[in-house]
Structures are given as structure tokens and as C-alpha cells.
């Protein structure tokens, strides 16, 4: 488990090196225009709330983290890198692994999820930090299906 975690952290490092991280503290020109448009749509009685939700940096960080987090689960982006036939095998293998090694699998899953949520998805190689988890699950899924369906 320790070796797996260390190796995984190495992949995290490569993901970090090749990603343009999400900027949480400054807004692009487009983001500023969108922010102004949103502010304009608030009724007068809610201006205070508008200033909190639309302008406070905490909310800006929250919305960006939410966007990055959800994008991890966009099945269509994996079409570019992996074949869709892997999906059912992945789900099967992943759940089998979770059943056997619950805590370890949760930890191994959290590493790429947290990484991608914080760093974002601007990476020409895609979210490869997830691949070890995907491939291990797929291989385990195939193995279990063939040799041991009683898990």
C-alpha cells in the first residue's frame, strides 16, 4: 500500500508538472464580464447577497472547485483516451476492489480526485492521474469475472 501510494504520488507530480493550474485568485476578462452580467440581474433587495455570492473570493474558489470536481466524472472526456467498452469492466472491477480493500481504495481514489479538483483539467495529456486507478480496476474486473465471481 505504501509503495502504491508513493508511486501514485509520482504520477500526481507529473500531472502537476503538465497542467496549467486553475487560477483561483484572479479573474479573466470574460469572467469579469460574466460576473457583472450576473450582478446586474439581481433585484435591488438582494444586492448585499449579490456582493457576497458573486464578488467574494471564497465563492469564486468554491465555484471553480465545484466545476473541476464535477468534470472528473464527465464520461465523455475519457472517450478521447480510453475505449468506452472499458466502462462496465471498470465499474465491476472497481466495486470488487472496494469490497475487498475498502479503506485503501478510498484513499487511492481520493488522491487523483483531490489532485484534479485542485489543479483543474487544462492538460494536453488529459487526466492521466486517474489511469492507474482505471487500469487496475479494469484488470481486476476481468480477472474477477473470469476466475472468481463470488467476491
Amino acid at each position, binding site marked *: 500500500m505504501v509503495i502504491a501510494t508513493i508511486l501514485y504520488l509520482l504520477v500526481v507530480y507529473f500531472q502537476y508538472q503538465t497542467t496549467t493550474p486553475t487560477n483561483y485568485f484572479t479573474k479573466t476578462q470574460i469572467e469579469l464580464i460574466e460576473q457583472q452580467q*450576473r450582478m*446586474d*440581474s*439581481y*433585484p435591488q433587495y*438582494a444586492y448585499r*447577497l449579490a456582493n457576497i*455570492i458573486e464578488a467574494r473570493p471564497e465563492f469564486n474558489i468554491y465555484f471553480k472547485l*465545484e*466545476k473541476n*470536481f*464535477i*468534470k472528473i*466524472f*464527465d*464520461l*465523455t472526456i475519457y*472517450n478521447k483516451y480510453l475505449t*468506452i467498452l472499458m*466502462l462496465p469492466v471498470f*465499474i*465491476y472491477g472497481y*466495486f470488487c476492489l*472496494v*469490497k475487498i480493500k475498502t479503506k485503501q481504495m478510498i484513499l487511492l481514489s481520493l488522491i487523483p480526485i483531490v489532485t484534479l479538483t485542485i489543479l483543474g483539467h487544462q492538460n494536453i495529456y488529459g487526466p492521466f492521474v486517474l489511469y492507474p486507478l482505471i487500469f487496475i480496476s479494469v484488470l481486476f474486473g476481468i480477472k474477477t469475472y473470469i476466475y472468481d465471481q463470488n467476491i
Partner: protein
Amino acid sequence: MTKIFNFQNIFLLFVLLLACFIFTFSLSNIPNGVYVDEATIGYNAYSIMTTSRDEFGKQFPIAFRFFGAYTPPLFVYVAVIFIKLLGLNIFSLRIISVIASFLGIFIVYIFVKSLDIYNSKYTKYISTILYITCPWVIFNARLGYEVTLGYVIFSLGCLLIWNKLKTHQISTIGYLLLSISTYIAHTQRYLAPIFILFTAILYRKQLFVVKNKKHLYILLILLFLTQIPNLYLVTTNAFWVKNTNFSILDFISQLLVYFSPSTLFGQSPDINLQHTIPSMSLFYFWLIIPFFIGIYRLFNSQKNDSSKYILLMFLLAPIPGALSGHFISVQRVLTLIIPIILIISLGFDNLYTKFKSVYIHMILAISISFSLILFWRSYYVFFPYQRAIWWSYGYQQLSKVIQDNPNNKYIIDNTRNSSGYIDLLFYLKYPAIEFQKQFTHDFIYKYYDNPPYNANYSFANISLRPIYWQTDIYENQILVGDDLAISEGQIQEHFLIKIFDIKDPTGKTIFAGYQTNPVKKMKDSKNK
């Protein structure tokens, strides 16, 4: 007395009151327009009520032609009752979806109670809260057309079938509800037979037993009888209008999109902005965690009949949507709502076994309160502002102008919106018998064969058609259109005088009315 005021009843009362507020608050004003589907249903129901014929003059249709969609008819006939009671207005239509969504609360509650995979006593309560606060549910509970009633009646059928199935019996009413749901919305028309087929295969050992033999025959006869109108429609073009070019690759990729957690818990890929709320997902994003836990629980108990049933509802729900064409439409997969709520509830049920319930309730209360604030921001602030144009905003104001000036003649440009006439008919409550006069007997005869559609209509003091610049400017009338239909150059060239301007909430002109000046124009033409 003590039995009435127990925790269960008080909690359900609280949920119903909260749902009543969420589903009905400012119902007539938000969405802040009458979408063309709502106006079509409203006017056709009004037409049926006053003449027993639809807008085209077809007597009691078994599928409404509308704009060539041949919508299943039941919602229109239900709307007749509400229009009779409450008048032709948007509230009369949207209240049907509100009532259906109320029924949805009970469906979710009873489902959780009757499926034997839930262990915690709290899960059934949590599931109702999740249902009434879900953005997808709220949005559809406030629509004045058939999709919500369709998914609720279908789900009710599924619930009744399940309740009998677990005791190896056949629910005649359940199957009849599935059959009836095929007359409410397109999705159910295709989903109901698929669902019946799969339940028959998967639960054959429970269903096809000797004691059910009589029930089975009665059910088959009843299903056949209730499907006679659809069987007739199968022989016409009207039944097949929603099936475009089918390809297996499209089908798989669409299924993938519908099942993608990012579609359900993140940004919706539906390109029709009328179907979604700005900056709001179908389910709150944090519910992805109990969703995955719920899926995992289903995986672990896959041999359990309850798990199989939830999985069946979940996996079959997007099939009609995936079959229906190239574009993603989240309104075609509304039957996903209840299975997903059941799966998320299962996730919470699992959490109850690991953590103290008080912590879960605290986290849930905070998360839902925070999410409801963001929902308010998206639905009550951004939605009426950004999506007004998608909801046919402006037709109410235009109808008022037309109504207030009955002696003026209006030419309304319909180049980019050929369906606008129905909003005017709806708001003006134009006598259906008069409108029907423009359709020939031949058109009515070929009603179900999808005869050609001509969107240029004339009624009352209105003509909806493109503006003919060669002739229209020489008549004394009012030309109506947006900035693209009537440009600044044309205003100058033809001496048009602006007499009204209807803007959307962002300040963009939707309709501007210009009085023609034939005398000056003719003089100018002679001088040239």
C-alpha cells in the same frame, strides 16, 4: 388523536407545506413567459373545451398535431378540466405539473418504504426532502406541459407493479397506468412497452405462475383495449415523427451522456436553453457522493429483487431519449428522477449505518440550505433574466398592445419564429371556431399523415408572415418585428414611425412596432 399526530405524519405535512411553497411560489410569473409548448396545449385545450375540436378543427384527436410533433393527448384533455375551472391562463396549466409532483413525493416515500434494501428509519424521510429540493424536480414541477405528468404517472405504475410483484402478484392497475402513461408523453410511449417487456423477462418466475394465469389474461385484454388508439396510430405517420435517423453509435454515445455523472450533477449538455436553469445542475453536485455509495450498495446486493428493480428503472429510463435523435434533451429522460432519488437515498441509508444520524442530519441541513440559496440565485434571479427570450417573453405585452388597439392592422414578422401565433391565440383567447375556419376538409382528413405545415396565419387584426417590403409599406398598418426584421435603414427609407417597443429583462428589443406612412412613401417614390 395520537395516531394522527405522530412523527411520520407531522414530517410529511412539513414536507408537503415546503413543497407547496417551492412548487407554487410565483408560479404564474416564473418562468416569466408562456413557452410555445404551454401555449399550444393551453389553446388546444381551450379549443377542445369550446368546440370539441383542436386548433386545426380535428374532433377529439388521439394525438395532437401541434407543430408536427403529434403529442400524446391526455395532458390536453386533463388541461380542459383545469381551464374550465380556472380559465385560460398559465396557472391552469402549470398547476397540473405541481399536483403531479406532489404525487411524486408520495411515490418516493412509499417506494423507499416498500423496497427491502433500506435499513434506516430515516431514509424514507430524507428521500422526500431530496425529491422536493431537487432542482430538476422543481423546474419540471412548474412547467405547463405534459412531461412531468408523464414521468409521475409512469413512476406510479412502477410503484404499484413493484408492490404486487414482491408478493408474486400482478398489479393490473400498475400496468394500466403504464399503458395510460403512453398517452401522456412521447417518452412514456416508448418506455412503457420496454419496461413491461424487461419486467416480464426479469421477474418471469414471480409473474408467470399458475395463480396469476387469470389475472394475466385479463391484463392482456385490458392492455390491448387501452392500446387500440396507439395501435391505430402505428399505421400512420403521426406515431413515427419522433424517430429520426437511428444509429447504434449515436445511441451508445447518447446513453453515455445521459448516464454521465457530470450530466446529472454538473453542467447539463442540453443545448435547448429552455430545458435548464442557468448555473444549476439537475441534482446538487454534492449528491454525487451518496449516489456513488448507492450504486455501490446496488452492486453489492445485485441478487436482491429490490436492487434489481431500482437498477431496471434506472437503466431503462434514458433509452427513449437516446433513441430519439442527435441532440441531448434532459426532458426526454425525466423518468430517471425517481430511480436516482432512490439510489441517492440508498447512499444515505448506507451512511446511517456508519455515522451517527445527528451528524448526517446536520450536514444535510447545511448542504440543502446552502444549495437552496444557490437555487434561488439561479432560478429566481438568473433564469427570468437570461432565459426570458427562450420562454416566449414579450407575447403577453404584444397581445395587450393588439387588444388595446383593435382598429389597427398588425403584420408580425415570423421569419425566425414560426410558432409565435399560438402565444397570441393563447393570450388573446381568440375564438377557436374562427381560427379553425382556415383549415380545409382535406387537411383534417389527412390529419395523422402529417400534411404540410404553413405557419403564415391571419386572424383578428393580425397577420403573421414575413414582411413584404415591396407592398406592406404602401398600406396603413403596423409592422412588428425585432431589430433584425426591421433595420434602422429600413425605418429611414420607408418613413416608419416607432409606436411601441417591447424589451426583454436584459433590455434587448423583442418586438418593436412601426406605423407605416403610405402617403409620404408614395410621394417619395413619385419624386424619385
